Structure formats: C-alpha cells, structure tokens
C-alpha cells in the first residue's frame, strides 16, 4: 500500500476548546463552523467577555444561527455572509487588546481569510485555534497564473484562471491561504490522470 508523503506545511486543525487564561475571547465562524461553535458553548464558558461573529451558509441545508441565538446570551453578531463576517472582524480588531483569544471555524478558505486579517494586527498563526468544519474542500493556488480557486474537491483541478489542469499538492502557503497547484501534464501535454474526489 502506498503511504503517501508527509509535508511540514500541511496545516493540522484543532477542535475548539476555551483557553483558560485570557482577557477576552473572539469566535469567528461560518456555515458548518456553526457545529464547532455549538460544541464550544457546550463547554463551561470562561468568565471573560466573549464576542462571536457568525454567518450561516445560505446555500447549505443546515442553518445554525437560530440555535446559536438561543444559546449565546450576549456578544453575538449574526452576519449575512462570510464576507460580512470578515468586514465585521475588520471593524473590531483595532479595539482588541492583547490577551484576546481567537477561535475560527469554517471552510479552509474562510479560516485563512480570517487569519489574513488577524495577521495584520500581529496575531500569529500558532496562537489561533482553528477547526476545519463540514468539508475538506481546498483553496488552490495556481503557480502558473496566480489565480486561487477556493472550493476544490478533486485531486486534479482545472484552473478557472488559465485552464491548466493542476495537480493539487499538500504543500500549503499560510500567507496565501491555499494549496499549491502545479500543471499536471507539463511534460506530457494531454496526459491527464483521472480526477478523484478526495476532498469531499
């Protein structure tokens, strides 16, 4: 059996758990990340103030905003979309203090879009809890045309920017928030392996 390969840059995600020492907590989630939020609120809540930014994925079958509303007494802001969550986050970060613990849940593309905002304020990757929720869909960066496709489920993906068929690698860039996609038939044009849905 092929054992595949291990690559250092591939992120491994957490299961959200409250941090005990903090000045405040901020939870940022979307779509299936709602389940991660509910799991978090099943744990005994910390004493420090908690802020929660959440948006349902309107296209999904399961919606969590109402359940979250009923469980979270205060500090909750429900937004219309994941972009709205990011805008709300941008507004609040300038006032956040050191000692704020961050928790993110949602798709991989969403998680790293949030990290992009946090990084501007000097928050480091290793200090943020991240739970990958609902899907293994990958954001993929085409090394040839630099386009990023955010929702890739297959091992071979046709780039929406340049049309090349890309092999989706495990090498991940935290800065770009995407996996490396390299032209799969560069040496033998047209010899493209069958795409398998390995990131459902």
């Amino acid at each position: 059996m092929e054992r595949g390969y291990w690559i250092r840059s591939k992120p491994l995600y957490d299961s959200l758990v409250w941090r005990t020492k903090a000045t405040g907590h901020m939870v940022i989630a979307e779509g299936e990340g709602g389940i991660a939020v509910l799991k978090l609120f099943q744990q005994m809540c910390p004493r420090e103030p908690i802020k929660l930014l959440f948006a349902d994925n309107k296209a999904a079958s399961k919606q969590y905003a109402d359940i979250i509303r009923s469980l979270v007494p205060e500090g909750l802001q429900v937004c219309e979309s994941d972009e709205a969550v990011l805008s709300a986050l941008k507004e609040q970060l300038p006032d956040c203090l050191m000692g704020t613990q961050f928790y993110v849940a949602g798709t991989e593309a969403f998680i790293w879009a949030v990290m992009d905002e946090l990084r501007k304020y000097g928050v480091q990757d290793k200090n943020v809890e991240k739970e990958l929720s609902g899907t293994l869909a990958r954001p993929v960066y085409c090394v040839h045309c630099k386009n990023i496709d955010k929702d890739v489920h297959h091992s071979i993906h046709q780039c929406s920017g340049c049309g090349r068929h890309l092999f989706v690698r495990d090498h991940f860039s935290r800065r770009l928030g995407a996996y490396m996609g390299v032209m799969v038939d560069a040496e033998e044009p047209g010899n493209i392996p069958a795409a398998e849905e390995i990131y459902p």
Partner: protein
Amino acid sequence: MSTLNVKVAEVEQITEVVKHFTLVQENGEPLPRFSGGSHVVVSMDINGRIHRNPYSLMGSTANTDSYHISVRKQENSRGGSKFMHEQVEPGTSLQITYPVNLFAISKVGRRHILIAGGIGITPFMSQISDLNRLGEDYELHYAYRSAEHAAFRTQLEEMCGDRVHFYVDSDGSRMDFRDLLSHQPLGTHVYICGPEPMVHALHHTAESLGWPDNHVHSEEFTAPPVGDEFTVELAQSGITVTVPGDMSMLEAMEEAGAEPPFLCRGGACGRCELEVVSCDGLLMHNDHYLSDHEKSEGKSIMPCVSRAKCSKLVVNL
C-alpha cells in the same frame, strides 16, 4: 569556537557599582555588525582559571568601530564582575565571542514594551538604536534603585524622549505589570531584562492575562548555581572531569581541555545539550530549555547550569 581579540579603549565609571567598557579590535579592524539585543561572552583568566561571562552590547548597531558593555559589580561574584572592575583597564586585552542574539525584537510586532531592572537596561540600549531607526512604536520602562544608580538616564532621555518612563525604588515608585500589560493592542510584544524575581513576575502576569508565550521575551544573565562536587566522564573522549562545587559542569569540562559546544551559558538556548549515558544519582536540572517531561526522562542535561548529585555522571561527548 572562534573568538575576537579586543583591547579596552576606555573605562568609564557610570555609577558606584557600574563600569562601562569600550572595546576595539587589537588589529584595528572594524568589529562585526550586530543586531540590537545581542551579547558577547568575555573570557577572563582569573588566577589560572578561565571564567566566561556574557555581557550585552549597549552601543548603537550602526557603530562597528567599538563595542560597549557595562558591568555591575555583583556582591556575590564568582570572580567575573570583580575581575572586570579591578583588573581591567584601558589597554587590557580580552577575548570575546562573536555577537549572538537571543533577545531580538520581533519583526512581526506592532508595538514593543521594553522593561528593564537595574543593569538589565544594557540590551535595550542597542535595541533602541534599531527601534528608532525603523520608526517602531515602543515604550521603555526602567526601574532602578535610587538616583545614584541611574545608569545612562540622560542618554536614555535623549534617545527615547517621552517613550521612556523611570521608576525609582527610593522614591517609592513601582512598576505595575498588570496595569502595563492590560491595555496593550493586539500584536504587542513585551521584553524584560532584570533580576530573576522581576522576570518571573512579568512572565506570570503576562500568562495570567492571556498573552501568548511567543509575545513575551526575556533575558537573564545569572551565574550557574553552585552545588556538591561530582565527577563527569566524557564517554567518547574518555576524559574524567571533577566538577568542583563552585564551577559549572561546562566550565569544568573546558578547564580539563574539552571543547563542548555552548552559546548563552545561561540554560536558555539549548546549544550545550548533552546526552546522558548514565548517572548513578540524581540530575539537578537548572535550565529553562528542557521540558518538564525531558527533565524527568533524564536523557539530556544542559552542562552550562545543571549539575548532578552522584558519584559519576557519564555524558556522550
């Protein structure tokens, strides 16, 4: 380990207990460049025994003509600071290591809080030259005992303007770490250099407020703890070394002619880590490098500060 041959160009009495030494290369060449927060290790021949003490470089990083270090005469000195104060004068030759930086300003920090206690002000002085040059947002909080002990106050006022705050013990003014750390924006880093209890208290306060470890930086120059005499055998070279009560294992091995690796000599950096082959007693870990688990496993030891209560310790060197 390669060293630089320097000579003392000038000695200045800063306070009753602090002397400032200006060092230049014997061969007249410029000294290697260094980044703010770096230190060098000075070798001193005291009554036939070599002592090695780290001292922070205080000068501007833009200056490569000379290095500037300041030494506080310690009451319980093992000889290093006493030697520097009593035996070193203009013209004295010294051997120093190349600069090493274990106390660097974070490149991803948006704000920097610098906290100095007494002689701990030294590493910040070179950092400030970098912070000013880069236009960084910083604050320096400097606590010292009394007016006579205010080393470099005028210089600091000139370099930092209103970014520096002084706390004079004898006036009763004290730093409030909780207050200082409770209102900082995201991306702030805190740096502390001073006596052990002060550093410990800062770490504790930062942790309780939820500051991540990677935003809290400290530097301590403490002498290795003393203890009982014991024997260490170097398995590969076959040398057996007696470690006296007042010498560290690293120093004893160096004295015996071995050249074990080292860097900070303070139990913080990990460079001197040795594999423990066997020990017929207890390992006394005094470092801040090994994890609690690693310490209890007993497979490694940091000879720069740690010791053993045993008749023989065998290390893989």
